[in-house]
């Protein structure tokens, strides 16, 4: 931060020294924010990759995919560690906008993984504890996933589950679709009870759309099953052709 002396000739030198100290403080904050944003972006990218991978669980070996997705989460823990280190004392909310996107995407990924493994909604603890353990920390300090980020993350989960269930139909996993339909309906109903803020309300609309799409899928499965109730629906094409 070498300010060329010649270029700024002040009538009042005090103003210069004042602004020099401002400059230092602003730069510190900005640099910190930049580093946090970068970590957050990396979290987003890695999380999106995990989601992409998990979508393949429809067609490939579920256990294998789960295993791999857990490995892929490892590097994310370190990124969280970096962010936590940047946050000093009471500054969680000062920089929250800088990392909220990454946190949300991570929650989307990890809740998707949890659903595929256990068929249930991930509790907040199950998100925080692995981070703590991986980073070898007793506590995350004030770094606590906010209720808003958690809510926004699991709203997006519904979109991924909708895509997942469309995949399920193409391979004949019909029960899975009905389960997902119930699951999302419970989530949507849970949210409806709350005094929601604007961000969540707008994402809720997306969730409703996903729910309607899954309902349509379930409807079409039911209607086909009803016509020949005793028949297995899924046909192995390769058998037919040979």
């Amino acid at each position, binding site marked *: 931060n070498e*300010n060329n002396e010649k270029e*700024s*000739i*002040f*009538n*009042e030198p005090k*103003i*210069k020294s*004042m*602004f*020099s100290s*401002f*400059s230092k*403080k*602003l*730069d510190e904050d*900005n640099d910190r924010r930049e580093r946090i944003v970068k970590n957050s972006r990396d979290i987003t990218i890695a999380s999106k990759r995990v989601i992409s991978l998990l979508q393949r669980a429809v067609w490939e070996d579920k256990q294998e995919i789960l295993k791999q997705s857990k490995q892929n989460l490892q590097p994310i823990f370190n990124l969280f560690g970096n962010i936590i280190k940047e946050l*000093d*004392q*009471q*500054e*969680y*909310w*000062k920089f*929250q906008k800088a990392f909220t996107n990454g946190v949300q995407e991570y929650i989307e990924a990890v809740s998707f993984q949890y659903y595929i493994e256990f068929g*249930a*909604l991930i*509790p907040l603890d199950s998100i925080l504890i692995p981070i703590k353990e991986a980073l070898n920390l007793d506590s995350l300090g*004030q770094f606590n996933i906010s*209720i808003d980020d958690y*809510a926004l993350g699991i709203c997006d989960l519904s979109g991924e589950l909708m895509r997942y269930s469309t995949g399920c139909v193409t391979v004949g996993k019909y029960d899975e679709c009905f389960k997902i339909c119930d699951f999302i309906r*419970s*989530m949507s109903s*849970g*949210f409806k*009870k*709350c*005094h*929601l*803020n604007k961000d969540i309300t707008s994402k809720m609309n997306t969730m409703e759309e996903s729910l309607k799409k899954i309902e349509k899928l379930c409807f079409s499965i039911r209607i086909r099953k009803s016509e020949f109730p005793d028949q297995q629906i899924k046909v192995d094409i390769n058998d037919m052709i040979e």
Partner: protein
Amino acid sequence: MENLFESFTEELEQDFQLRQNIKEIMTKIEPIDRKLSQMVQTYHQVNNTMSYQQLLEEIQPMKAQIDQLKLLIKPVLYYKYRDYWKFSITQISFSLIFSYWVEKKSLLKIDQVQSILGLDENKPGSFSLELEDYLIALCNLSNELSRYCLNCVIKQDYETPSLISKFISDLFAGFRLLNLKNDIIRKRYDSMKYDLKRIEEVVYDISVRNLIKK
């Protein structure tokens, strides 16, 4: 899943209540802000008698409100709710700084403003006048002084414009020392260039007509 959503509901409800309380306090701070803005306006009139002291008196009830806010909001949540008072506090700071400059021809520093308003010093989680807001107040100052400059000439005060010119030139040079991102301050700083230009035109008019006594 139901337990989960019940704790959700509770937490969101608390947040909602807190926000209601903050709004309540703000309805007491906003009239002060309005009053001060009005006082600043009178400085532009030919027959102005406003004084910095009067502003200080008007500001008295602020401290009590700030104290209430401090009680209400845990340090860790300070930044979460800051948007509620950010604008008013910036405006009030500007009014004080403007009045002070016009009277003393000198800049009220950030820590001076803080102590007047009963705010804490600038450190994480403390309830303070943020640097960012102080800078915005300085941008407002530049804008108001460029207008004040014209009104000085109307009152046949030909000395003050040069002082304003020197001061805003310094302020502008000060901002140039900052590494501004593409944010709101950057935008306001960009428009400060027009204030300076306007002030230069006034000084030019005075200068070319030789109105100032050398």
